């Protein structure tokens, strides 16, 4: 076993373990913090794949913004952070079924894929991954259309958020 494999196994175990803790812990803020650990594990996996840009964006967007938002939402909406209610609701069997089906489908798909047993080709030295990604995002024969559609979607979400928060009766100064 190479060092890279050992590192990957440790990171994968930690990621999955903290993912399990997210759904089993009874304290909502702890669940959010375990989620941070899970997302960080995913970032480390990206880093192991030499996708440094994705790794850092994962930390900035998911830990720096989304996880903080989760924690805020939990703290501001719950009266007591230690929830005593049941952890499952009536749809638990449907969720479990969906999870099993997804896992089975992925397993079935990956059965026929030969890439699992191959080792990745080494990157040529001086390979500018960030530059390649940037060019791909704005070049017409690559991903410019999805990129622009995603931008329009985000702008629409921004406008929607402003519309929801805007109260025409109190003037626009937010008093």
């Amino acid at each position, binding site marked *: 076993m190479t060092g890279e494999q050992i590192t990957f196994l440790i990171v994968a175990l930690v990621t999955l373990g903290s993912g399990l803790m997210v759904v089993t812990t009874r304290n909502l803020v702890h669940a959010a913090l375990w989620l941070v650990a899970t997302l960080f594990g995913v970032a480390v996996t990206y880093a192991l794949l030499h996708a440094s840009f994705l790794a850092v964006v994962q930390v900035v967007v998911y830990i720096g913004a989304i996880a*903080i938002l989760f924690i*805020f939402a939990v703290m501001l909406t719950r009266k007591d952070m230690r929830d005593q209610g049941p952890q499952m609701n009536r749809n638990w069997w449907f969720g479990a079924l969906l999870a099993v089906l997804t896992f089975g489908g992925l397993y079935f798909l990956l059965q026929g894929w030969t890439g699992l047993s191959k080792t990745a080709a080494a990157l040529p030295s001086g390979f500018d991954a960030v530059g390649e990604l940037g060019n791909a995002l704005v070049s017409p024969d690559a991903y410019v259309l999805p990129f622009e559609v995603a931008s329009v979607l985000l702008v629409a979400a921004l406008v929607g958020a402003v519309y929801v928060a805007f109260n025409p009766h109190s003037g626009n100064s937010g008093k």
Partner: protein
Amino acid sequence: MSFWNDPLKVAADWLMGILTGWGMPEIAAQILIGFLGILLLISVLMVLDIFLVWVERKVVARFQDRIGPNRLGPFGLIQPFADIIKLMIKEDTTPGGADKVVYNLAPMLSMMSVLILWAVVPLAPTMLGVDLNIGVLYIIAAGAIGTLSIIMAGWASNNKFALIGAFRQVAVMVSFEVPMLATLLIPTILTGSMGTGAIIEKQDIWFFWLAPLGAVIFLIAAIAELGRAPFDMAEGESELVSGYNIEYSGMKFGMFYAGELLHAFTFGGFLAIMFFGGYRFFGLELVSPFLAIAVLLFKAFIGYWLIMWVKYTLLRIRIDHMLAFNWKFLTPLAFVLLMVVALMNALLAGTPTWLYIVGMFLSNVLVAWGALEVARSYSRREREKVEGPKPVVETAQH
């Protein structure tokens, strides 16, 4: 390759020779040497941190017309060691009902988020922890971990003051991340790379002359990110006592405090790296890496001094004003400036250097002037709403 030209590489090669001579496999020796390098850097930073306490106290004393620490040792130099001994022998308290693991993790994360920043600080042309090609984004990502540590501290303390302080501080940090990222993209555009090493190599002309407004916005956003006055919302003494770290005692509080000081110094360093040429000073960095480090430290201390100057001069701003200032003024301004700089950089690409510099500088000044005019007319309208229109001629009142 002598020791004076590339000390780290020579030392690493020497250690490598010894370790492999002892029969250690090369890969293990490499990992060990890497860890030793990290240990060395962190030790130097922590020792520097001890002296930053002294520097901070001396400088604030000057600003407030006092002498500052002056009893222990020459110029009070032993004072910080006395402070540390005091912090270490203090009782280590944990508030009742605190979330112990999270409570103890928070100060560590806070210090860590500062220390990992130094992985991308180029100390000299040959001394750079990791030459990440996304160094600029890495700085923001490290800030995200700092934000997380504050909310953890505030929540785990089981104290309403701490929680409110953490909320305020995190609101400020999350907001000011946006203009900071936008201004960090300016050196990126001018260089064509996000790597900190490449950004310094490119600065034959300091980027300050090409984007002075960018440097100013970066400084403002950095001060807010540090949570220092006038943006020190977390520690409104009269209302919150001390904000998110109120329940911490002894060395745990020391970690927050030392982390804040080192953070301020680090951002002084980043100001130097992004806009003032980093370790470069008229070719001095080529003479010896030690001179390069001295130049970088000198520039970082000037940046740190600027941050202290602002802190000890200005009053705290109310939080709604602060957030309005960020979202309605600083963020749009940063994005407009980013677009203007990108456009001017492309337009002036083939022109002679003097024209390029003058064009970039003037476009920045123009943007700043326009922004200030907009802000002034807005504040005039707001004032008129409250006070009514001002008379054209001031009538003498008797």
